């Protein structure tokens, strides 16, 4: 019996670079950041005043920011989202701006911020009749959601799964990260010697996954394959990663085994790369554990897009597929002085990608780690 493959047949995103995959890809290749001065709410008392937001979205009125991002993406008819697609929604805070408005001026119902309300709206926007689930696992939410979607397909439980991810820059989240001293006063500079924290960002997007056989039957263009994954937990600390990177290394080992590939097959590596001192250091240690002296090109997109929280994993999977299909390793934006630890791994310049397999990783609060193996189709 042939093994079922989970393939991506459609995807789209909106990021602080603008609408669509091309705007994000071209933005990253331009080496210019989308992080800028935040004007959505007063930020003077916070650690930082910068974030990366989608241009043109009005905050604190009518619909939530995530719905403003998702509506134009999901209402396009060009993707032909099948009615029977199983919906997997990934988010950490969803429509949290509605809860803000309830507390600040009672202009919204607090309960309308609940993720199940968002799920219903998305299901309606997509025209889906099947059930679904909401997945939340901190900043690894959407990479874990994508892995679970692939798992449903590979195990022949489903043959079509729609993964939707979203999170926005809100006062709720911004104030919280500021209180944890996690924000860079300037801008996130992943793997830079002078990095000092993350910059928040927002994004929404979707991946439509199908079994290879259904994709072929429906003449769908295949963007790439989710070939394997590994999920672990550091079991160490609530807000900081395990300093030795052992939890992430274990996730990568599991992912390689699950995809039946070796570390030598990996052409490049999409890191979580938040720009915090401990995260980036931990990731390089994990890479050294897995790859030894075989240095693969590593990049982070968060110097460009900011940290898009629950949407980060999905956004990074889509950019990783772009990278595989265009055979280019994108540059790490805002990288000026490479940290000694990361020297030889990361680059501020785009590189030619040699290979057809990549790994995308995410880590988050509570010690959660995910590694997803992506293959060019």
């Amino acid at each position, binding site marked *: 019996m042939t093994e079922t493959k989970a393939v991506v047949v459609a995807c789209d995103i909106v990021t602080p670079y603008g609408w669509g995959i091309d705007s994000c890809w071209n933005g990253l290749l331009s080496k210019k950041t989308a992080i800028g001065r935040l004007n959505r709410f*007063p930020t003077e*008392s916070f650690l930082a005043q910068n974030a990366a937001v989608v241009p043109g979205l009005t905050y604190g009125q009518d619909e939530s920011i995530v719905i403003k991002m998702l509506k134009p993406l999901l209402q396009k008819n060009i993707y032909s989202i099948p009615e029977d697609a199983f919906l997997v929604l990934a988010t*950490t*805070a969803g429509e*949290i701006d509605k*809860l*803000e408005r309830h*507390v*600040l001026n009672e202009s919204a119902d*607090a*309960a309308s*911020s*609940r*993720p*199940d309300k968002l*799920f219903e709206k998305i299901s309606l926007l997509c025209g889906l009749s099947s*059930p*679904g*689930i*909401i*997945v*939340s*696992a*901190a900043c690894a939410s959407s990479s*874990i959601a994508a892995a*679970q979607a692939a*798992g449903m397909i*590979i*195990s022949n*439980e489903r043959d079509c799964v729609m993964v939707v991810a979203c999170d926005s820059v809100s*006062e*709720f989240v911004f*104030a*919280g*990260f*500021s*209180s*944890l001293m996690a924000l860079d006063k300037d801008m996130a500079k992943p793997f830079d010697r002078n990095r000092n924290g993350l910059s928040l960002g927002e994004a929404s997007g979707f991946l439509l996954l199908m079994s290879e056989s259904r994709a072929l039957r429906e003449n769908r263009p295949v963007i790439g394959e989710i070939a394997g994954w590994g*999920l*672990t*937990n*550091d*079991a*160490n*600390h*609530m*807000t900081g990663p395990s300093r030795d990177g052992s*939890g992430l290394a*274990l996730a990568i080992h599991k992912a390689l085994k*699950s995809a039946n590939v070796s570390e030598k097959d990996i052409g490049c590596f999409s890191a979580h790369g938040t720009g915090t001192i401990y995260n980036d250091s931990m990731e390089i240690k994990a890479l050294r554990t897995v790859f030894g002296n075989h240095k693969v090109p590593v990049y982070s997109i968060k110097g460009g897009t900011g940290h898009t929280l629950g949407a980060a994993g999905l956004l990074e999977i889509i950019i990783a597929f772009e990278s595989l299909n265009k055979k280019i390793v994108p540059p790490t934006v805002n990288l000026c002085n490479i940290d000694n630890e990361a020297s030889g791994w990361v680059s501020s310049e785009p590189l030619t990608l040699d290979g057809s397999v990549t790994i995308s990783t995410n880590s988050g*609060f*509570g*010690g*959660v780690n995910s590694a997803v193996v992506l293959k060019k189709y």
Partner: protein
Amino acid sequence: MIVIKGIGWITLTRYGSIIKKLQGNYNDLKSLHSHLQHESVLKYAIKNFGRFDAVSKMTCCSIAIALNDAGIIYSEHMKHDTGILGTNNDGCFESNLAYFKDYVSCGRTIARGNLFIYTLPSTPIAEAAIYFGCQGPLLYIKFQHNQIPSMLRYAGKMILRGETSKMIAVEANEKKAVCFVLGKQDSASTMKALSLEGVVDTIEKISDFDEMIRMLNN
């Protein structure tokens, strides 16, 4: 075949387990923590238990009871390949409100980090992973219908897909929690275990928590 090796439950005043038939009463969660430690259900104190939100307290205590029910020994120094799947109806809605109201009452100038960390639905199970040393997959899933049977089926599938060797599946809110320890059937084990399908069949059509516990005890 996937089996359930232990089940622990907590209401606002009572707690218990299904296989070892442990039962008891308690006054508040702080006293439950002390009581479970005294009974060696908790092997050592849960660090920072006092600052946990209510769902995290319920989650950790119910997992301790379930692991004790399953006869599984854990240690803070020995991490193991066990995943945790959490679910409930409301996510972290109450913690979200508490955090943001506190922030606004402080003049919107400074937020409390200790309240902020509980504004993720996955935080209660992450607190548990740290205490129990669970290094497997960790995720919160909200199912559309039949939370507990759906959660059990999902956790079983994660084991069958090879994502981990054991899963802890827990539904918890501020008022009640129930936790199940799932794993592959071990023919060499002398510990009693319940079939996953049998448990799911038993509780599938029961929406009342107390009734579910009664049925599981039978």
